[in-house]
């Protein structure tokens, strides 16, 4: 392991590169909804994204990192050749990062999750052998790509339908919005905090029993709901912009809720997508440091922090512009709709993260938007584009795999 520092340095560099790419591009989809609906300004969104991406990565990103690091390859076959796994993981990182860059330039809809999974499987099949791939696990991951948009869509459908029945179709929607909005805040915060507590806090060295988890989540959700209620009560009725049913002001109430879901989305994105960049880094570092493959130690918190920093850097340098562009294009998603879609997507992603499933943030959000559309919430959805987004993984997986194989051979020739 004389090249240990070279490997660690390269892993950190490639990992940062990919995290930067995710922050610059992918994150825009998660945040832009809140900007498009006018709930947050760009500056506020950047702040929310920085804080909650980071929190999501550190508090809830560990499980997915583990999956990426050691869930897909049977490391038993690699005990004698740690270098192969290091080259493979470096190649996978580089492949996913480069593919992300090419696709972003060309405007293709790609998923970082799909490219990194494709890259790891690709290198494993060619570099080690098809037997080394944990096909059952990879199959489960592929299934989660179908299931996650579906679940998000169903949750979004019922969330928006409940908003419609409790608030929008009533003769007094504004009174009802003020009454029910804190309830929605409570439920959203409670569920997301609960899922994080159940799975996440091991990595920061905090273990809670089930009852404490419920108690902490309950108190936290209640606190946020009370704060939200205070803000909602202070929203003035804009008489000029209002007509009989005050929908303008009703949407202003939901804008408060969208601040909460923006935080949740950033948290969810951090919990899932940071792992894509950081999983392979974690693998390389642990092998390089210990010289063995297949150890069981937990993901070091410092690696998660590195991923979080990379994403925030991407956001700060380039993501700002992308978020502004995307946000200005999705004005159709008014706060009542945006809330339904985001809360469903955030819930689904955090749930997936807690079970270690790397899912696509964008796909899950698109599924949620379709769910709101099914509940007659959106005036026009372009199904052609939706189809192209979901079909993109047909291209992304082989592209990631082929690039990873090429980089694997190059790295092995140069360093091996």
């Amino acid at each position, binding site marked *: 392991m004389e090249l240990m520092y070279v490997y660690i340095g390269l892993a950190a560099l490639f990992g940062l590169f990919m995290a930067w790419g995710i922050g610059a591009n992918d994150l*825009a*989809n998660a945040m*832009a909804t809140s900007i*498009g609906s006018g709930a947050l300004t760009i500056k506020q969104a950047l702040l929310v994204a920085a804080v909650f991406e980071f929190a999501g990565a550190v508090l809830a990103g560990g499980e997915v990192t583990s999956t990426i690091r050691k869930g897909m390859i049977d490391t038993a076959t690699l005990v004698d050749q740690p270098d192969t796994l290091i080259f493979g993981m470096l190649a996978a990182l580089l492949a996913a990062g480069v593919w992300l860059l090419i696709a*972003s*330039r060309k*405007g*293709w*809809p790609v998923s970082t999750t799909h490219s990194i999974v494709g890259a790891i499987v690709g290198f494993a099949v060619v570099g080690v052998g098809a037997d080394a791939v944990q096909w059952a696990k990879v199959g489960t991951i592929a299934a989660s790509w179908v299931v996650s948009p579906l679940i998000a869509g169903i949750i979004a459908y019922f969330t928006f339908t409940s908003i*419609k029945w409790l608030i*929008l*179709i*009533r*003769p007094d*929607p504004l009174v009802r919005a003020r009454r029910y909005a804190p309830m929605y805040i409570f439920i959203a915060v409670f569920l997301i905090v609960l899922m994080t507590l159940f799975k996440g806090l091991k990595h920061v060295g905090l273990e809670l029993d089930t009852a404490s988890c419920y108690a902490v989540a309950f108190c936290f959700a209640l606190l946020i709901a009370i704060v939200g209620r205070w803000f909602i009560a202070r929203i003035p009725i804009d008489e000029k912009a209002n*007509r*009989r*049913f005050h*929908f303008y002001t009703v949407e202003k109430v939901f804008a408060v809720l969208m601040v909460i879901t923006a935080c949740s989305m950033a948290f969810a994105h951090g919990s899932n997508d940071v792992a894509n960049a950081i999983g392979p880094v974690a693998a390389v570092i642990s092998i390089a440091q210990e010289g063995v493959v297949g150890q069981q130690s937990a993901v070091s918190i410092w690696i998660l922090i590195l991923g979080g920093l990379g994403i925030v850097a991407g956001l700060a340098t380039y993501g700002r512009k*992308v978020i502004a*562009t*995307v946000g200005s*294009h*999705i004005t*159709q*998603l*008014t706060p*009542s709709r945006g809330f339904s879609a985001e809360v469903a997507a955030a819930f689904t992603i955090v749930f997936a993260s807690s079970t270690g499933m790397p899912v696509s943030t*964008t796909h899950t*959000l*698109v599924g949620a*938007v*379709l769910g709101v*559309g099914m*509940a*007659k*919430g*959106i*005036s*026009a*959805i*372009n*199904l*052609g*584009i*939706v189809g*192209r*987004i979901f079909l993109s993984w047909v291209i992304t997986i082989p592209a990631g795999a082929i690039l990873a194989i090429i980089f694997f051979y190059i790295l092995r020739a140069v360093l091996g």
Partner: protein
Amino acid sequence: MANYFSKIFGASPVGPIQEHMELCYEAAKELITFFDYVAQSDWDKVQDSRARIVQLENEADEIKKQVRSNLPKSMFMPVAREDLLELVLVQDRIPNRARDVSGLVIGRKMEIPVAMHDPFLKFVSRNVDAAKKARKTIRELDELYETGFRGAEAELVESLVDELDQIENDTDDMQAGLRAQLYAMEEDLPPIDVMFLYRVIEVMGDIGDMAERIGRRLEVMMAH
């Protein structure tokens, strides 16, 4: 750089449809001025008024095309695409009829018999009332989308459509009255003028009919 997530949101047809209806109503309203000048036989002013109607009709046509091109088959919407296309088509017939009727009158420099002035102008104005009520219901379209075409807002639109039907009934009665009046006077008027007067009354009455059909389209949308 293209972003696919934002592209899944198609252009909402609501704004353009409302804008279109505003122009349709303006064109119908101009007929009041138009027939006032016809009654006074002030043909210069009649020409000016006709020019405004044609102008409004052209503008409405542009928006109609824009709405259509923004409604490709791949759009997934809370209302059937056909219902929206039909709505715009019906709306668009209002300025078309305004242009037709003003064209008929100008082409033959038609005089409306003095005895019919008062009831005819009232008939015109009632048809314009129908178009105005149709505009009022279309102005609720964004709120209908907000509520998913259900509940209190839908009931409000239902009641507006009922009022619209009432006005259209009035125009039908007035139209029958005008025809009867014209029939009684037929003998004393040049036959070709009479033929064209019947035609003017008929085309004018179409405006009320089209306004009523706008209400029907909204009812169909709410029934889905």
